[in-house]
Structure formats: structure tokens, C-alpha cells
């Protein structure tokens, strides 16, 4: 015996089964709690990495600030930073800022005096540098002179050797020429003498 189903009946059976396949409320609540826990763990983990990243960023920022400040302080205070140096614009900029704050005529006078003294120190420094420059130029010239002298000596030695070797070479040439000439001469014929004797 074969029972016949219609497709509608199969659909009905499927729908009925699907009704029973609903998630239990307890399971839904349990999973919701699990998810919340997981989310908190995740956000805690993220917070750690975020704070580490923020710390790194702050550290890098602080390092850059320290380097910039110390460079500015060095440029401002050093007399050896003179016109033409890389840090000189930084020095003058700092001085301009200082000048900006000198508002009263008295303070301005003091400021200009201070700046004049600073320029003087720079000039002295540049003069020292110039002195060193001149010393270096003199040293360079002395060394060039020494080098030329050594060159002259070496050339004269070469000439002497050449003069010694020249006669020997000439003799050699003469000998070679003679040998060539001898090779070019026709050989002496003995058979003529023999014929004369026979006659």
C-alpha cells in the first residue's frame, strides 16, 4: 500500500517542524550573556593595545619635543653658530621672539645691546675660524711645494739612468745593423776556383 503525499502536505509538515525548531529562551539568554562577556574581554584587550599605542605616540612626541628644545637652546646659546650654519636661522628666530617680548624702550635698548654683544662674539668666532682657515691654507701650500720638490728629484734621477743606458743601446743597434748587412751579402762561390784549376 502506498500513501500519497501532496507537496502542500510536505510544506505543512516542514512548517510544523520549523515551529518546533525555535531556539529555547534560556539558550538565547545564556548566549546573550556569553556574548556580553566576550565583548567585555575584547574591549579590555583593545583598551590595552590602544593605551600602549597612545603611550608610544606620547613617548615619540615627547622625544621630538626634547630634541627640538635642546637644539634651539644650543643654537641660541652657542657663539659658534654663525651666519651660514644650518642652525643659524633657528638662532635668529629665537632672538626675534625674545625681541618681541621687549616692549618698553628700556628693555629694547637692553635687548639691542645684548644682540650686539652676541654678534661681536660671533665675529670673534668667525675671526678664529678665519685664522684656522688661513693656517690650513698655508699648510696646504707647504705640502704642495714639498710634493713638487719630490717630483723634480724623481725626474732628475730618471734622466741620469737614461743617459747611462743610451751608449749601450747605440752599441747594440750598430751590432744589429752589421749583422743584417752581412746576411745581405752574396755567398762566396768555391766551384769557380775548382774550374780554374781544372783548366
Amino acid at each position, binding site marked *: 500500500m502506498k500513501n500519497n503525499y501532496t507537496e502542500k502536505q510536505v510544506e505543512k509538515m516542514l512548517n510544523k517542524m*520549523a515551529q518546533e525548531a525555535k531556539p529555547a529562551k534560556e539558550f538565547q539568554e545564556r548566549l546573550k550573556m556569553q556574548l556580553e562577556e*566576550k565583548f567585555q574581554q575584547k574591549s579590555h584587550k583593545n583598551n590595552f593595545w590602544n593605551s600602549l599605542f597612545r603611550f608610544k605616540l606620547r613617548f615619540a612626541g615627547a622625544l621630538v619635543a626634547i630634541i627640538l628644545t635642546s637644539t634651539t637652546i644650543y643654537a641660541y646659546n652657542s657663539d659658534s653658530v654663525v651666519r651660514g650654519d644650518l642652525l643659524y636661522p633657528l638662532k635668529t628666530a629665537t632672538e626675534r621672539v625674545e625681541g618681541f617680548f621687549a616692549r618698553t624702550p628700556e628693555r629694547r635698548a637692553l635687548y639691542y645691546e645684548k644682540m650686539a654683544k652676541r654678534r661681536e662674539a660671533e665675529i670673534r668666532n668667525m675671526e678664529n675660524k678665519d685664522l684656522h682657515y688661513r693656517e690650513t691654507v698655508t699648510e696646504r701650500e707647504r705640502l704642495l711645494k714639498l710634493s713638487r720638490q719630490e717630483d723634480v728629484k724623481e725626474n732628475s734621477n730618471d734622466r741620469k739612468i737614461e743617459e747611462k743606458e743610451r751608449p749601450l743601446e747605440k752599441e747594440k743597434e750598430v751590432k744589429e745593423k752589421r749583422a743584417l748587412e752581412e746576411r745581405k751579402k752574396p755567398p762566396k762561390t768555391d766551384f769557380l776556383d775548382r774550374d780554374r784549376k781544372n783548366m
Partner: protein
Amino acid sequence: MAEFENFRKYYQDHMPQIYGYIYLRARQNRALAEDLVSEIFLKAIEHFNQFSEKKGSFRSWIFQIAKNHLKDHFKARKNDENISIEKLINTLKPDVDTQKSAQLEIEKESLKNAINSLKDDKQEVIALRYFSGYSYTEIANLTGENENKIRVKTHRTLKELKNKLESLKFETNEE
């Protein structure tokens, strides 16, 4: 915390559908379905920062996670699941106790077994249509197939289920 509230809203809206889909695909095993659904949503919350509504709907996103998770699950239990259809049909015969119990219970068991003997893509269509309650358009969007093709596939699967149920009933009656 706003992010979790957002996720909770999605969870409440989509959890029953995902559960229905997983329940059918996990051989109507409630305990296994609960485990799998938990794992899927935990995975989803782990990667929730990667989800963007601009890229696609939450439904497609969670469905993709569910599908991949099921695939991994079946791959891991390939040996256990490797039952031939013939073997399955033998198990479809309800035992004496079931025969004695209500007719509806027998039918339900037969239907479960008939569904489990279907091919994966057909099981998927049945799961999405009847257990998740999606429309044909929604199924087409989720699977990336043509809507008409989905309609035809559903119709053919119903026919196949009908035939399987009839043959099962015939075998049971013969015995």
C-alpha cells in the same frame, strides 16, 4: 558599549533565523545546533569591527559566517558524517516502538531522515525557506543565485521530499 548595543540588536533580529538554518543543517540535533550557533555568534562578535553596513547587510555577513562554520564543522567530522544514502534509508525504517506511537511522530522522523538524505544545496534551500523564514528574494541575495532558480529548486526539493516520504512509507508498510 554602544557597539555591543548595536550587536545585541542584530543578534535579536537574526538569531532565530540562523538557529533555524543551523538546526536543519545539523541533522535536527538541538544540542549540536545550540553549540554551533553559540560558536557562530561568538565568532561574529570577535570580528564585529570588520562588519560595515556599507559593504552589505548583517544578514549576509552572519549567514556567510554560519555557512563557513558549518563547512568547517562537517569537514572536521567527515568520517562520522560519511553515511551513504542506502545506509540512511535503512535507518529510516521506524522501530516497533515508534510504529506504536502516534502517526505524527513517525511522519516527523521520516521527514527528518528524508531531509538529511538530501544533497547539501537542497538542504540549504529548505533550511533558508522554511526554518529561517526567508523570502525567495532574500535567499537569492544570500546564496547569490537567481530568484527563479531558487523557486524551481525549492519546488523540485519538495517533490523529492514527497517521493522520499512515500517510498519510506511504502517500505515500512511492506515490513
